[in-house]
């Protein structure tokens, strides 16, 4: 076991990890933040996406043991004190989900996009979520949710 301290959503999370454990596994099973989903566990579905120092990465492809020294943000860390993040709100309002399994990953990827590019075109939105699968096929509404969130964030 390796003792490490992960900084997740601004909080210190001391945890003991084995070398081969993925960050996704540790976040869900050891720290208890189950908003981050695991699907394929080989980097092809996008559901485990979290932010590393503001940039999206797949937490299933990251060894937890070398995750120290970064600021990690999961879906639990993006809302304000009392209100939902604009992306969370538009995903509800525009029905950007059916079963909801891909939603945390989609929202995290979209958040990183909007921070870098507050006025994305539809094709830029599609490119930002290219590594994310929605098995319900809700892509059109996901794109709409992200476009509308961008507009709300700008206003």
């Amino acid at each position, binding site marked *: 076991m390796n003792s490490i301290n992960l900084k997740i959503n601004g909080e210190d999370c001391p945890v003991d990890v084995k070398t081969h454990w993925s960050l996704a596994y540790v976040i869900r099973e050891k720290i208890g933040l189950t908003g981050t989903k695991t699907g394929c566990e080989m*980097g092809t579905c996008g559901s485990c996406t979290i932010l590393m120092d503001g940039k*999206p990465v*797949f937490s299933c492809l990251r060894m937890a043991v070398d995750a120290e020294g970064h600021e990690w943000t999961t879906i639990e860390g993006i809302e304000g004190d009392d209100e939902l993040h604009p992306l969370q709100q538009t995903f509800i309002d525009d029905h950007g989900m059916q079963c909801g399994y891909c939603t945390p990953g989609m929202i995290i990827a979209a958040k990183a996009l909007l921070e870098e590019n507050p006025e994305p075109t539809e094709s830029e939105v599609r490119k930002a979520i290219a590594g994310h699968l929605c098995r319900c096929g809700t892509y059109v509404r996901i794109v709409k949710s992200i476009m509308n969130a961008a507009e709300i964030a700008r206003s």
Partner: protein
Amino acid sequence: MEYYSPTELNEAYALLSKYGDAAIPVAGNTFFMGHREELFDEVEAVVNIKKLGLSYIKIEDDTLKIGATTTLNELFNHEITSSGDYKIFAETVNELNINEVRNMATIGGEVCIAGEVDMPTTLLAYDANIIIGGSNGTRSVSMQDFHLGYLNTALETGEMVVEVQLPKPIENARGGFSKFERTAADLPIVNVAVRLALENDGTCKEARVSVGAATLAGVPKRSIAAEEILVNQKIDEALIEKAAVASNDVECINDFRASSELRALWVKCGVEDALKKAIAQG
């Protein structure tokens, strides 16, 4: 399985020598973690090489030097590798559509895989050299000689890649990259990188046509026949078509992801597309 995160190169080399073939250097993690089930039985020591100061992009003595742990998105965003002589790097990364992978995967990981990845195809077209480090010092191996075969490189036990170097492309050099894959999450089925050096009157002084992901050899190969058609000629549409047809001197692999016939067709289309991109760069 032990985990190490050395901060000095010598420390890293000592660990790689000590554990020999049971040690694995990891950078972006994206390949290693995706194959963990197969690898975990064989690996006794994981050596994280991201804290060795090997993340940089710079030009020294007319040579472009890229540290092994530089990520694909760093290449995509850096001034040197997204414009001018070396913008082929950004163009190559642009064809990998998963932002999350681009934030993690490193150039060192790409060259060490010796399989279905994009960057080595481009590095072959740009006559890159791979700088290998170990306890006995460093040595330089050309991209062409670095890949011995599928998943097989010139790295000896105890060694790792520390840097990728590119000689300055000849004046008026232009590059183009083209790729076929099924979905963003797929690995490339065919990729092609070209580099042309043109005289002021448009005559081609030097040409490189490099084909990856599709080859029977499992690693990128140059199409010498296509290159010979281009050199000393003025390049127009008819010549591009002729070079594209000639690129069938690269033997394609037949596997579950695509038949060799389909790959050969896509190689031809890829060569045509990459050459047109290079010419359009003007």
